[in-house]
């Protein structure tokens, strides 16, 4: 990871903390939350994003099941888990394995990088994931994370 990026992230985080008085942290410039391009959901509150990725909210507003796609792009993944879920990637992994072990649910689907995310997402309508902001193209659509 580039040192400047880290500094900028930290600065942004600090600024956000200072301005918002400790409120939910906004998605940084590093990653963006994305969904199928036809998905009518244009924006989601940060808390709802967290619930979705922790398997606590499983359905879109139209009633269809939410399919999670974990991005194995380590930088983006870690940035996402720490920022949005306040967890390390290992914590999240154990979290999901615990759910799997209890028999409640299977592990979320994991793909190797942004491209794989976009490719899978374009073919599966109910998916949600996260990618590097720079990787955004017409295959997917960004979902604005509101505080």
């Amino acid at each position: 990871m580039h040192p400047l990026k880290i500094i900028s992230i930290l600065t942004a985080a600090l600024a956000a903390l200072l301005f918002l008085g400790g409120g939910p942290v906004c998605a940084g410039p590093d990653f963006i939350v994305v969904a199928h391009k036809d998905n009518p959901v244009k924006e989601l509150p940060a808390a709802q994003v967290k619930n979705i990725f922790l398997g606590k909210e499983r359905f879109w507003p139209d009633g269809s099941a939410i399919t999670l796609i974990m991005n194995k792009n380590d930088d983006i993944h870690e940035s996402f888990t720490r920022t949005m879920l306040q967890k390390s990637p290992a914590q999240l992994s154990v979290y999901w394995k615990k759910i799997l072990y209890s028999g409640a649910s299977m592990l979320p689907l994991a793909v190797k990088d942004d491209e794989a995310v976009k490719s899978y997402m374009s073919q599966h309508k109910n998916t949600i994931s996260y990618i590097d902001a720079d990787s955004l193209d017409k295959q997917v659509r960004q979902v604005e994370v509101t505080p």
Partner: protein
Amino acid sequence: MGQYNRLSKLEEIWFPMASLGTDMRHLFKTKIDRHEDAFLTGEKELATEFDTLNNVLLDKFSQMEEIIQRHPQIPLKLASIQKLREDYMVNIKLAKAIENWMDEAVDLTPKLQREIQQHGRQQRSLLERFSSLDKNISTYFIEAIQRNKTTTLHNTFFLGGLFLLVLLLATVIIDKVATRLLITPLATLKENVRSFAMTQKIIEPEEASPSDEVGLLASAFYEMTKDLKATTVSKRYVDNIIRNMSGALVVVNPAGLIDKVNQQAIELFGYEEKDLVDKEAALLFVAAKAMPLKNISQLAQWPLKNVEVNCCTRDGHIFPAHFSGSVMDNEVGKMVGLVCVLNDITELKDSEQKLKQMALHDALTGLANRHLFFDRLDRAIHEAERSGTKFALFFLDLDKFKPINDTLGHDIGDLVLKTVASRLQNLVRAGDTVARMGGDEFTMILNGLHSDQDARKIAAKIIQRLAAPFTFGNISCTTGVSIGMTMCPDHGQVAEQLFHWADQAMYLAKNQGRNTYCLHQQSILNLS
């Protein structure tokens, strides 16, 4: 009583079952935790601990199954336990399989994930079944305890009731036995004793067996009272005698004090009992000097019988009494008192006096009779001889008395005679004697005369006194008297002779014209 069975049931079934149920749940939960830890962390060593737990758990299964087999009555099905065991074994197999994929390196393919999921669900359901088994056992356990408590309570009530019942029964039996064996015979005995005390009647008790102590006591009492009655006189008997005896009884102690008196003594002397008891016995007697109680220690004079004494009542009335006394000794011969009996002899004395009077006096006039007259005459002769004095013997015969009797009746005649007697009595001195010989004949002895002149004067006086008329109401009559006189010793010293001559002199006086006197004229006779 299922007390013991229930307790042993608790002990043999529910204590171990509850502990087994809880242990199994704990062991399985521990197994899950360890296995999950191993799965989540990838540390297989944590899972090896699970093997030990598994063995212990299977052992618990065996123990529980054994208990259920031994006690088929308990509400847990052996089959359900066995099913749980089978399911558990299946789960264990799956768990073992999962252990192999715990390496981080192994990619959890959807197939593997589905197996893990299945295992997780099985495991969850198994945990629920273990928990429910534990809960059920606890419920049964609590129920058993509750039942036991209730039973114990019931048993306590039952035992308490039984105890009371037995106590009651024992009380009733003891009461019956005591009444029959002890109280009733004792009551009968008591009645017999009381009856004996009141009436001296004794009732023979029933034949007693040698073991019947009370019966033997009653027999002994009966024998005793029989002997007692045969050999002793009751106090009441003696009291009766004392009360009913006619004489006054006075018991005097050796000190001369009255110890006891009977009712007759109280009535006779007019004292109250308290005024007599402990007082000097001399109080009752006149002239204590002559009283035989003066010195009661002079035993030689006892017993005394019918000694005549004079007694004195409380009012001071003196009466004659017969006194009898005897010494009362105690068992060792020591004198403890005198038993004195006093009989009032006032009436006896009066009768005696009356008899004496009747024997020596004339019944109509009260004058000396012929018998007493001759007695006096003899004494007068002796007295005259001894003292050298003279006395005169008069023989009086009333003149014309027969007509009074014939015309006025014997009653008036008797009255005349009595009046004559009275007038004659008034004319003589105390030592003189007036006697009636019978009919209208009287005699007189006039002592202490000096000469026949004295006799003549007296005779004249008599004639004069008897010449006075006799008046009884409206009846009046007169009589006269002819007097013959002899002097002693002038005319002789033989009573019959003096009497005879006085009689002769009286006839002379009659011949001389009545209402006169005539002195025996020895000289004349001698001269003639």
